[in-house]
């Protein structure tokens, strides 16, 4: 009998002794406590992949199940968890093994960090006794993930596990959301708990107290600034969605008659058809939105972080504006853009406080007329082609057929920008895209997670032919679980955005950006027992899209689109927002 088994028995006997006098204590090991802890947190689903170091945890999961989605690559698992988190608002839970399992998660963890998505990621680790010896499948996960997580833990003692689980979920899902990694050495997963107290330890985070309510004086200053503004503008970012402040935003916009623009990640915080919505701002934003930023006299940023793709050249960003910035993360305020009125707060609380002031709406009639004129004058545009399908047309078709109600996920690149421009969203939390990190291969697995979170919604993954091939192995999940995700590949046989930049800034030297040889995507779908469609002719497009998108089954649509199409309008890198190319005036 090994020493470990002996101690285990001894501990179990010890635990059994006082049973008669006190309340019955079931001896539990680390793994069982972990599963119990996840259930206590209300975890509905785990996205994961097993391996050596997490065998005890998977064994506990076998005995005490929580629905588990077995992705075919850890990157697929974590992007699915991100999609789940984005549409449900609940933390996505990921489980992977040590070493390669954990390192395969790095892209997804960074993506979640950049886009403030709540994730709790559990990684296995080699036994404590061999940590630091370059053991089989050992990687310094804490070191690797320290700069890309909101916080991370290595569980050194099983007694700390219940508290760490609670803290991990608390940190991930409060304040500015973000990923938390919990690294569990294999021996910790099998150690037995001795006392009841250990299992009920509570959160203890003296260094973590996010500010969620606004400072009254700052709110008053904001009111004063807005009241006397003539050209106010609201920039609504993802913070509105994270804070579920959509209703408050709409009230402010409508009662104060202030036009609103979105960041890429803020899309959906107000419906795309709203009369005061100017479209997305930034590098590929609408001309009106960018001119509004350049000309406004008060800019009210709600939960956006003034990312460089939004601001363009900071030297000419919003030159006439007094900036009000509402953000739950104080470090974002003043980071890129000098801010006159900082409001550290949850977006909902801040907007409520603003509305409570019951101030008079500013006179924005002239400003709105001017912006309306710009919208009329210089709308989004593209030239249609007699034979080829334009990617913008394809997205408009998808929009028409799904009536703007679908959950749309994307990768990064041209298709992402077109989807942002042409898929006008009716609903919040229906837009899942990799913004900050710009991760290829994100959209398809994220759609799987989104569909799992919202089984009754229609989920469309709009991806490019390049990005799709980075995580296409997850077609297995559609096959296995019959998850009715609609995968639309806007196939232009190129890495479109790279190609566009090479065309524009590198004299059409298409270095490694054309992909003439591709798999037969329809056959690929069929290999996974999925229905595949190919759209090559313009006249068939609408009908095939209709059949495929309205089906209740998972489908893949390989839609061939024009290769040399570019995303316009555009702010060239280093230029200011008012300096757009590709603007067409009527």
């Amino acid at each position, binding site marked *: 009998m090994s020493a470990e088994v002996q101690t285990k028995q001894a501990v179990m006997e010890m635990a059994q002794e006082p049973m008669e006098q006190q309340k019955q204590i079931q001896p539990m090991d680390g793994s069982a406590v972990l599963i119990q802890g996840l259930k206590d947190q209300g975890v509905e689903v785990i996205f994961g992949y097993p391996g050596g170091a997490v065998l005890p945890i998977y064994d506990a999961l076998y005995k005490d199940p929580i629905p588990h989605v077995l992705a075919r690559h850890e990157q697929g698992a974590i992007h699915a968890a991100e999609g789940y988190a984005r549409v449900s608002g609940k933390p996505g839970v990921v489980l992977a093994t040590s070493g390669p399992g954990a390192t395969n998660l790095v892209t997804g963890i960074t993506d979640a960090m950049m886009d403030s998505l709540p994730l709790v990621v559990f990684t296995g680790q080699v036994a404590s006794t061999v940590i630091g010896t370059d053991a089989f499948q050992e990687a310094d996960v804490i070191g690797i993930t*320290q*700069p890309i997580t*909101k916080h991370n833990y290595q569980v*050194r003692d099983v007694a700390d596990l219940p508290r760490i689980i609670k803290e991990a979920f608390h940190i991930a899902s409060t304040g500015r959301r973000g990923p938390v990694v919990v690294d569990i050495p294999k021996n910790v997963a099998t150690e037995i708990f001795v006392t009841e107290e250990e299992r009920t330890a509570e959160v203890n985070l*003296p*260094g973590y107290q996010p500010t969620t309510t606004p400072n009254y004086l700052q709110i008053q200053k904001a009111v004063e600034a807005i009241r006397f503004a003539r050209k106010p503008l609201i920039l609504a970012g993802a913070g509105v969605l994270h804070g579920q402040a959509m209703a408050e935003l709409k009230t402010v916009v409508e009662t104060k008659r202030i036009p609103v623009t979105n960041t890429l990640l803020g899309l959906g915080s107000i419906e795309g058809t709203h009369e005061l919505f100017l479209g997305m701002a930034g590098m590929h934003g609408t001309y009106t939105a960018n001119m509004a930023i350049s000309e406004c006299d008060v800019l009210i940023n709600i939960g956006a972080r003034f990312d460089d793709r939004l601001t363009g050249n900071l030297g000419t960003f919003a030159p006439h504006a007094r900036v009000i910035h509402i953000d739950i*993360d*104080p*470090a974002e305020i*003043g980071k890129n853009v000098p801010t006159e009125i900082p409001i550290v707060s949850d977006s909902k609380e801040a907007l409520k406080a603003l509305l409570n002031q019951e101030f008079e709406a500013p006179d924005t009639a002239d400003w709105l007329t001017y912006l309306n004129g710009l919208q009329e004058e210089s709308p989004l545009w593209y030239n249609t082609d007699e034979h080829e399908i334009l990617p913008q047309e394809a997205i408009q078709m998808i929009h028409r057929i799904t009536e703007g109600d679908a959950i749309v996920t994307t990768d990064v690149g041209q298709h992402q920008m077109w989807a942002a421009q042409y898929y006008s969203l009716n609903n919040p939390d229906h837009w899942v895209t990799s913004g900050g990190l710009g991760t290829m291969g994100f959209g398809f697995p994220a759609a799987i997670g989104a569909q799992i979170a919202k089984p009754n919604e229609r989920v469309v993954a709009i991806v490019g032919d390049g990005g799709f091939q980075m995580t296409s192995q997850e077609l297995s999940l559609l096959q296995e679980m019959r998850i009715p995700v609609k995968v639309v590949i806007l196939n232009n046989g190129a890495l479109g955005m790279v190609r566009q930049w090479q065309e524009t800034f590198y004299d059409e030297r298409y270095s490694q950006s054309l992909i003439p040889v591709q798999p037969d995507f329809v056959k690929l779908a069929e290999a996974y027992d999925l229905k595949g469609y190919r759209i090559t002719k313009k006249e068939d497009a609408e009908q095939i899209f209709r059949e495929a998108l309205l089906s209740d089954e998972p489908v893949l649509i390989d839609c061939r689109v024009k290769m040399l199409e570019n995303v316009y309008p555009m702010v060239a890198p280093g230029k200011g927002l008012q300096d757009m190319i590709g603007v067409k005036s009527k």
Partner: protein
Amino acid sequence: MKRVITVTVINQSGVLNRVTGLLMKRQFNIESITVGHSEQTGMSKMTFIVHVEDEQKIEQLVKQLQKQIDVIKVNDITDKAIVMRELALVKVVSPPHARSEINSIIEPFRATVIDSGKNVVTYQVTGAPEKIEAFIDLVKPYGIKELSRTGATAFTREIQKVNTPQLSILK
């Protein structure tokens, strides 16, 4: 500009790495850093001296440090009345015929001899970093065989001048 930052952290493994990793990620240059236990059990105190371009940059640094879960408190004490000390061990080439000369010129520094050999003497000198610099400059002509500095540690004085200028975010 040079800033003195003190940080109170929860004393657990990896916390130093977290803080220095953050400074590296955000491209801050650390001139010196000291860490040790503080008056509260389970808490450590760090003192950094960093070089930054402007006030906006130091504001970012303070805010980013404050965001760390293991960080309890961050203070930029540069503009306050503070006590600051650093310790240096300096091994100076000191043959017998020069020894009394060296001893006499460094006397104002109140350095102590903590080791001596046939041709070298090791001095311990404490004080503000500028004083240490001055000491080093003074003995350099004799030949420094080895030099080791602890980095500065500091906190605020009991009595502050009124209207101490402060960073806007700390007001």
